């Protein structure tokens, strides 16, 4: 057999259940309880409205730079919604709907985005890692967490998120390879939102899909319409169940779109056209899901209106609570906390010196 074609076990599929008009493919429609469908809808809407509010707060100078998520709600919430509380999420920085789903308070998001470390505190009842800014680096933590879960005999899974840009990082490669070799219960969710700041997906890699990168690691890969929460949900469910059952890791590429700027410091007009954005607006994950729920008779325009009002109130209350809470923050001595379990001598000295110099400065000021 001198020149032989090697049979590759893996094929890559694309999954879409709700089309752009919100019409469902009945052969693929998952059996999701009504209450859960409605909760997903509410969370998507809440995340969208909160994202919009954060943007206006940022423009008013009331919070710092942050990365909006609008347009990607289905791509990350659909996956996270399949998890149990004992599973872990290892996020990048553009999974706010999932964060909220997992119990993160709106206040903590405001406080974090206002430059207070307190906003990063993870409550004891959430098994999630903090946001990870260095692109791709968090993927390896999910691999380690999954390893530890299996070692401890749990059937939990670790789900990690990252963008299309992250797939170019060495840590992506190393993480998927380790997960393949050790057959670990990890679900790798790539939110392919078409852009890594100004770099389009086509310049990020020459591969036709991101999902096919799974072939390099001998693990299953699938591409889903990331603006179709049903497709994301179904793909995640399959991957999670396989992982729980000892079947190892999966790579899910969610094809979606970042409707807003990369962060509030970014000007997307420099690198993409309004027409492109408009095209994707038509595929909006919320309106699509909305259509589905209406057709199913689970939602009415009236109900949505009530929901919108409740959400507006919830956000307003959170903003007020956060602004109140922040008044009591800002003790600079906090920066010396949480360096180590025990503060070493040199840090105690630095802390003391800091206190002394603050006092000195105040004296000076009074003097002047």
């Amino acid at each position, binding site marked *: 057999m001198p020149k032989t074609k090697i049979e590759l076990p893996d094929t890559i599929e694309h999954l879409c259940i709700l089309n752009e008009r919100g019409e469902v493919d009945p052969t693929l429609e998952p059996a999701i309880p009504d209450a859960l469908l409605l909760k997903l809808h509410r969370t998507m809407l809440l995340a969208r409205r909160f994202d919009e509010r954060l943007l206006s707060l940022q423009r008013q100078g009331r919070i710092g730079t942050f990365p909006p998520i609008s347009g990607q709600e289905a791509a990350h919430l659909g996956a996270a919604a399949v998890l149990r509380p004992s599973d872990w999420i290892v996020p990048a920085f553009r999974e706010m709907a999932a964060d909220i789903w997992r119990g993160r308070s709106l206040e903590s998001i405001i406080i974090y985005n206002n430059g207070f470390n307190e906003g990063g505190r993870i409550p004891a009842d959430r098994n999630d890692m903090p946001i990870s800014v260095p692109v791709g680096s968090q993927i390896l933590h999910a691999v380690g967490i999954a390893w530890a879960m299996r070692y401890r005999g749990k059937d939990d899974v670790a789900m990690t998120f990252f963008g299309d840009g992250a797939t170019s990082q060495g840590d992506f490669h190393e993480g998927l390879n380790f997960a393949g070799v050790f057959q670990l219960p990890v679900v790798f969710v790539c939110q392919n939102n078409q852009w890594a*700041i100004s770099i389009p997906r086509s310049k990020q890699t020459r591969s036709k899909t991101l999902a096919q990168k799974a072939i390099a690691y001998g693990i299953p890969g699938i591409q889903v319409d990331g603006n179709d929460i049903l497709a994301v949900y179904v793909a995640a469910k399959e991957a999670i169940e396989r992982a729980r059952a000892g079947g190892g890791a999966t790579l899910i590429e969610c094809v979606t779109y970042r409707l807003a700027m990369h*962060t509030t410091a970014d000007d997307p007009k420099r690198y993409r056209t309004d027409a492109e954005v408009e095209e994707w607006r038509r595929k909006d994950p919320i309106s699509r899901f909305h259509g589905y729920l209406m057709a199913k008779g689970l939602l009415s325009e009236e109900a949505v209106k009530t929901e919108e009002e409740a959400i507006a109130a919830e956000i307003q209350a959170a903003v007020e609570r956060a602004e109140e809470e922040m008044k009591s923050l800002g003790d600079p001595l906090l920066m010396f906390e949480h360096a180590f379990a025990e503060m070493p001598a040199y840090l105690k000295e630095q802390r003391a010196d800091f206190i002394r110099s*603050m006092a000195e400065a105040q004296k000076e000021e009074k003097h002047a």
Partner: protein
Amino acid sequence: MPKMTMVQALNLALRQEMEKDDSVIVLGEDVGVDGGVFRVTDGLLQAFGESRVVDTPLAESAIAGMSIGMAVYGLKPVCEVQFDGFSYYTMHQIEAHASRLRGRSQGRYHVPMVLRAPYGGGVRALEHHSESREVFWAHIPGLKMVIPSGPRNARALLVAAIRDPDPVIFYEPKAVYRAFREEVPEEEETFPIGKSQRVREGRDLTLIAYGAMMRPTLEAAEELKQKHGVEAEVIDLLTISPLDDSLLVESARKTGRVAVVHEAPRSFGPGAEVVARLVEKAFFHLEAPVARVTGYDVLIPLFSREQYYLPGVARIIDAARKLLSA
């Protein structure tokens, strides 16, 4: 002479060097179409085309490693790492290869690359966007580490870095990027790498700083004079490594009292080397222990508290007055 921000001055340096020498290539994440997230490379794509201004995929190790290959072949890559906080991804390429290829090939190859990265705090940035880890690079033999402090010297030093036959890590103080304007000559100007600069004369004490810390340091010097009648000499290191200790030593011998200011964490920081050099070469002239006014040895806090972390005018004056009373 036009007045420019540091961003504009750096852009001018790149533009002019690219015009003069077609071996100068700019590459990195978002440096092309977007013009760099801080706009340092703005307009270069339009002026020089995709063959010289290269938007890369998101992979810092590859940006550095590819630059090494380009440089070995004879080009002069100027690559950008978007923030200093992501430059550790390039560490192995820089340590294991860029800094060593001249030695390893016994002079056959050299690596005339520049790795630019914005560094430091003070711009209300996200996590991992305010670091200051210049000592990592300064400690590596075979590597040069440069940090300008204003538009004019930034331009002059970047030109020198691009022309330098050896690898240069070029950290740009992002707090200075748009903080003020300075006259920058249109015509060519360079400043030698490996030289520090006296920017204020004084006889009572010496303040040594660089990068974004030059401004509070100079302010402190002015206030020391105005309020306390103290004449502080101020030195801008400009090159961190190879550290030019001659001026430091000369000044320390004159004033006998020295403080070194940096935003990097204190322990094993750049200031320690300054202290060590002064001890080695000016010990018997020192009237007081050399003081370090630095970032603390903790995670730099998120932006609402970072002003407490960063050395400011008050802390510099505090240190100066302690030095004078020693």
